[in-house]
């Protein structure tokens, strides 16, 4: 459920780091908490983000959830297809439903994230 090679934020985003690039989405736990996703708002390419800064909004039929950048960097790619098929976030949250790719400008912001084991513990504590 929570792949080992990803890093996780307390706001339930995941990031797959490859060199100075990081691909970002929301976790399976997050999509499950939201329910059927019907709307997504993403930033423009070129926007700079600080770790913890809001970069978009995801809405299910019943709930609104803000998206927070897990790292500091610049948006270099946006999954614009996802905004017309937001249901993919429920179907494949940690694969096809990636949201943005950032060029990481502060590698220390990656170090502050959780590994799969720590994230699993967070989810278990929230589920109680």
């Amino acid at each position: 459920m929570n792949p080992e090679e990803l890093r996780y934020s307390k706001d339930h985003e995941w990031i797959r780091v490859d060199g100075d690039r990081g691909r970002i989405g929301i976790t399976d736990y997050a999509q499950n908490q939201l329910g059927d996703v019907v709307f997504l708002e993403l930033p423009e390419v070129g926007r700079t983000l600080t770790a913890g800064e809001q970069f978009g909004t995801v809405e299910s039929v019943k709930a609104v959830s803000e998206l927070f950048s897990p790292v500091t960097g610049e948006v270099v790619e946006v999954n614009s297809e996802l905004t017309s098929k937001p249901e993919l976030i429920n179907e494949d949250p940690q694969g096809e439903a990636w949201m943005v790719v950032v060029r990481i400008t502060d590698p220390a912001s990656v170090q502050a994230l959780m590994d799969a084991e720590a994230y699993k513990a967070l989810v278990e504590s929230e589920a109680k």
Partner: protein
Amino acid sequence: MGDLRRTPLNTVHRESGAKMVPFGDWDMPVEYAGLISEHLAVRKAAGLFDVSHMGEFEIEGEGALAFLQRVTANDVAKLSDGRAQYSALPNASGCPIDDVILYRRAADRYLMIVNAANIEKDLAWLQSQGPSGCEVRDVSDERALVALQGPRSESILQALTSIDLSQLKFYRFVEGDVNGRRALVARTGYTGEDGFELMVAPGEVVELWAALLDAGKDEGLVPAGLGARDTLRLEARMLLYGNDMDETTTLVEAGLGWVVSLDEAKGDYNGRAVLAEQKASGAPSALVGFEVVGRGIARHGHPVYLGEQAVGAVTSGSYAPFLQKNIGLCYLPSARAVEGTEFDVDVRGRRLPARVVPTPFYKRPR
């Protein structure tokens, strides 16, 4: 916050993997497999809802009719045995204390179904209105209520009862046996579909729930949560008390003029003068249905602007799963409460254009 109340089906919901949420004082299922699939199942096949949290009052005695005429807006004299009526309990300003369904079981025996959140308020209100020649009794804890809704409802329920359901018309009810137990079966609902509401003793509802799901398993019946119930009722423009109407909106403003009787024989009742005046000369504002024109979802509480003028807030707003549109309800000044009026909804600081459209948004094919 104290412990949440639980319906007799609470354990059944939890064991089936439902997502449970606090709903008023109650711990209720918001969804089982998923809100959208449940919504579509009700439109195309059938869904089963636990609505046991709703309140029920018995109003019985020879003075029941006269009392009910004084405290409700609709004409109770139109009811005969086995008929139900949508109505409201207006205050002196013509605004609803609650919206209710009234059932006539006999000339001196009525049953009133009220909103869960309003049980105590309604009971206190009714007692304050001086029931004479009748008694108002809260029997909410002695009744469980489930709603079977959707086009396949009749054939599913028919398998469990000898009542001839083809003869039971809309807003009629019978008391008979379902699954071998005594039940009140009403052809009513809150989804915009054909369907039934079944009232049974709390100790019998778990068995009934299982029997219904079994009878419907080849017909596409699924358990459905309060999430789908809310989106279904919104598509059908059925109002939610506390959101779309309350003690500050008159029944005429809420578009419920059709439950306001001005029949002379009904006599005076709370708010009658105000309601009669508004029916004749118009009300200052009116509840309208709208569609979002831009990209985004308008939700309850989002501010509404006509140009730069703040005119209120969205009372209900959601993505509509069957229509695949973003829709909602809000109050507008009457002069602008007409089809085609364009206005803005403030969604977290962003202006989202919307347009008044005819309602109901969804009407079932007949």
